C-alpha cells in the first residue's frame, strides 16, 4: 500500500485514479468521457498560477500546496443548518445531497439529486461549463459526486428554494466538488437562497460549479451567502445562459472563508434579457476574496448591472475583475459596472480590474471604481449626535453596503442578505 499523501493537482489526479470506478455515472459512457477529458485538461493545466492573466491577483498556493482527502461525512444531525427561510430546502453535506435534512416534497417543480438523475442528463450536464478554459471546472468535472438538480416547468412560479451547503468537521483536510444544474423553462421563476457554511476549525475545499439555463422570459433570483469556516476555501464558478426576455439576478455575499473566488460567466444570449450581478465582500484580517465576472452581451437590447462593494479590515485583500464583452450584434446594450471598496485598515489591499470590449456601435456602457476610507465629516456628524464611535463606524459601513443590497428586489433574498450582514457586524463588534 502506498501511504504517500499527494498534494496539489497531483493529489486530485491520484484520487481520480483511485475513485474513477466508484464515481457516479461510471457506467455511462458520456459521463466517463467527460471525466476523462476533464482529467486530461486538469493534468495539463493544473491549478492556475498567478502567471495566468485571470489569476493575477489571487494566489492559489494555499490550496495547491495542501493535500485534501475525500470528505468522510460524519455530521449526523442538522443542528448547524440555518433557520428555514422558505418552504423548500435542499441540503448538501460535503457536496452530497441529504434527503433526510431536506424538504423538497410538494414543490410544483422538480428538485433532486444530480447523482440520482445522471442517466437522464446527457447533453445537459456540461452544456455550459468550460473545463478546457477554467481548470477548476475541469477539477470539478473530474470529481463531482452530486449536486442540485432543479427544473422549473414553463410558466411555473417556483417560489423560494434554499440551497444549504455544509462542510462537516474532520481531522484531515477534505475537498468536495458539487455540480448544480438549474433550468427554468420559459416564463418560469424561482428564487434560490444559497448559504454555504462550515466548521471554523476544519480545512476544506468547496469547489462548486453551477450551470444555469434560463429560457425565454424566465426570472431567477440567486442570492448567495458565503460564510464558510475561516480555514475553508471556496472556489466557485457560475455559468449562466440567459435567453430572450429572461433575467438573472445574482447577489453574492462573501463573508467567510480564508480564500474565496466567486467567478461568474454570464451570457445574455437573447434580445431584451437582463443580468444583475451584485455583491458584497466583508473581509477580516487574513482573508482573501476575489470576485471575477465575465459578461457577454451577445444579443441586442440587453441590460446589465453590476455593483460590488468590498469592506476590508486588517491585513486582508479584495479583488474585483469585471469583463464586459459587447458583441457586434449587441446593439443598444445598456451596461453598468461599479466597484467600490472601503478600506478600514492601512494594511488592507484592493485590486480592481474592469475591462470593456465593445464591438457594437450603439452602446451605453459605463464603469467605475472607487477606493476610500470612512468619511471623517460623516463620522464626526454621527458622533456629535451622541453616537459612540464604534456604532458610528458600523452605521457608515452598513450604509456603504446598503446600495448594493437594496438592489435585490426579492424580499426573502434581501432579508437573508441583510441579516447575514448584520450577523457579520455583531461578530465584529464582539
Amino acid at each position, binding site marked *: 500500500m502506498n501511504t504517500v499523501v499527494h498534494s496539489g493537482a497531483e493529489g486530485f489526479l491520484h484520487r481520480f485514479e483511485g475513485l474513477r470506478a466508484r464515481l457516479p455515472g461510471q457506467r455511462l459512457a458520456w459521463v466517463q468521457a467527460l471525466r476523462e477529458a476533464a482529467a486530461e485538461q486538469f493534468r495539463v493545466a493544473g491549478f492556475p498560477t498567478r502567471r495566468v492573466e485571470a489569476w493575477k491577483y489571487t494566489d492559489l498556493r494555499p490550496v495547491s500546496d495542501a493535500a485534501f482527502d475525500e470528505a468522510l461525512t460524519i455530521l449526523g444531525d442538522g443542528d448547524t443548518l440555518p433557520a428555514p427561510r422558505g418552504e423548500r430546502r435542499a441540503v448538501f453535506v460535503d457536496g452530497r445531497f441529504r434527503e433526510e435534512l431536506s424538504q423538497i416534497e410538494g414543490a410544483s417543480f422538480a428538485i433532486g439529486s444530480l447523482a440520482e438523475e445522471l442517466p437522464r442528463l446527457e447533453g445537459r450536464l456540461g452544456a455550459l461549463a468550460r473545463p478546457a478554459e477554467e481548470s477548476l471546472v475541469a477539477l470539478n468535472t473530474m470529481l463531482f459526486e452530486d449536486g442540485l438538480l432543479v427544473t422549473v416547468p414553463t410558466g411555473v412560479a417556483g417560489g423560494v428554494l434554499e440551497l444549504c451547503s455544509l462542510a462537516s468537521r474532520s481531522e484531515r483536510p477534505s475537498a468536495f466538488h458539487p455540480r448544480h444544474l438549474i433550468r427554468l423553462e420559459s416564463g418560469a421563476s424561482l428564487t434560490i437562497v444559497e448559504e454555504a457554511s462550515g466548521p471554523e476549525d476544519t480545512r476544506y475545499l468547496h469547489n462548486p460549479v453551477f450551470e444555469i439555463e434560463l429560457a425565454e422570459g424566465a426570472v431567477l433570483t440567486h442570492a448567495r451567502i458565503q460564510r464558510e469556516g475561516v480555514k475553508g476555501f471556496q472556489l466557485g464558478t457560475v455559468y449562466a445562459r440567459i435567453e430572450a426576455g429572461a433575467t438573472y439576478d445574482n447577489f453574492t455575499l462573501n463573508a467567510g472563508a480564508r480564500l474565496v473566488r466567486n467567478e461568474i460567466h454570464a451570457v445574455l444570449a437573447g434580445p431584451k434579457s437582463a443580468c444583475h450581478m451584485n455583491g458584497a465582500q466583508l473581509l477580516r484580517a487574513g482573508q482573501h476574496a476575489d470576485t471575477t465576472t465575465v459578461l457577454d452581451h451577445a444579443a441586442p437590447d440587453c441590460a446589465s448591472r453590476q455593483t460590488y462593494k468590498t469592506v476590508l479590515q486588517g491585513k486582508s485583500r479584495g479583488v474585483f475583475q469585471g469583463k464586459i464583452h459587447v458583441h457586434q450584434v449587441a446593439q443598444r446594450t445598456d451596461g453598468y459596472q461599479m466597484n467600490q471598496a472601503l478600506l478600514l485598515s492601512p494594511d488592507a489591499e484592493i485590486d480592481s480590474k474592469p475591462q470593456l470590449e465593445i464591438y457594437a456601435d450603439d452602446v451605453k456602457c459605463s464603469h467605475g471604481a472607487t477606493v476610500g476610507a470612512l468619511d*471623517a*465629516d*460623516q463620522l*464626526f*456628524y*454621527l*458622533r*456629535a*449626535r*451622541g*453616537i*459612540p*464611535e464604534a*456604532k*458610528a463606524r458600523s*452605521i*457608515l459601513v*452598513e*450604509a*456603504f*453596503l*446598503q*446600495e448594493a443590497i437594496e438592489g435585490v428586489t426579492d424580499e426573502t433574498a434581501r432579508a437573508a442578505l441583510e441579516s447575514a450582514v448584520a450577523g457579520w457586524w455583531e461578530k465584529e463588534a464582539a
Partner: protein
Amino acid sequence: MLRIEGLTAEVDGKPILKGIDLEVPAGEVHAIMGPNGSGKSTLSYVLAGREGYEVTGGSATLNGVDLLGMEPEERAAAGVFLAFQYPVELPGVGNANFLRTALNAIRRGKGESELDAMQFLKLARARLKELQMSEDMLKRGVNVGFSGGEKKRNEVLQMALLRPSLAILDETDSGLDIDALKIVADGVNALRAPDFSALVITHYQRLLDYIVPDKVHVLMQGRIVQTGGPELAKQLEASGYASVQAAA
C-alpha cells in the same frame, strides 16, 4: 452655564482662535456675529470636539464640566448640540433610524430608558408637526437630496428631539425662507428654559428679531472684540464691521 476662558486653537498649525473669553449663563441666549473667516465655525467645532481643531490653551466648561477633554459623543451626552453650518449628507442611512439611534444614545447617557420604534415615531411625528416638516423626511437618507432649507430644518428637528442643555446654532438661518426662519426661531424659543442656553451664530439681524438674544458678541480675527445687547446687532446691520474695527 457655558464658560470659555482664554481659549486658543489652531487648524493645520495656523492659529484661528486667539484667546476667547465668553460666558453664557444658564437660561440665556447669546448671539455671535462677525465677518467671514473670523473663527465662528471654528469656535463651534472646538466646542463640539471635531478632530483637527487643536486646542492650544484655555478652557471651556459646561456647568462646571470640562468639555475639551471629552470625545464628541461624550460632549453630546453632556448636553452639547451643534447645528452644523453645513449639515453632512449620509447616503444609505435612513433619517428615522439615525434620529432614533442618536436619541437613544443620549437617553442612555442620561440613564433614561431607550425608545422602541413605535415610541420614537410618536415623538418624532409630534416634533415634525411643530416644525411644519413633512413625515417624508423620516424615510429619506439623512440630508440626502434635502434642499438647503430642509437640511437646516433637519438640524432643528434633531435639536428638538435631543433637547440639549447647550445649543450652538451655526448660521442655521442662512438659506431659509421667511416662513422657515420663523419656524426655526420658534423651535429654539420652545427650548428656552432656566437650564438651557444657546449660542446663535448669524450674519443677519433678522433672526434676532425672532430669537431675541440676551447678549450679542462680535468675533473678529479670533477674538471677541465687542459685547452688547440686542441693539448691537441692529447697529452692525446699519454700519457694518468697520465701525467695530475702529472701536476695537
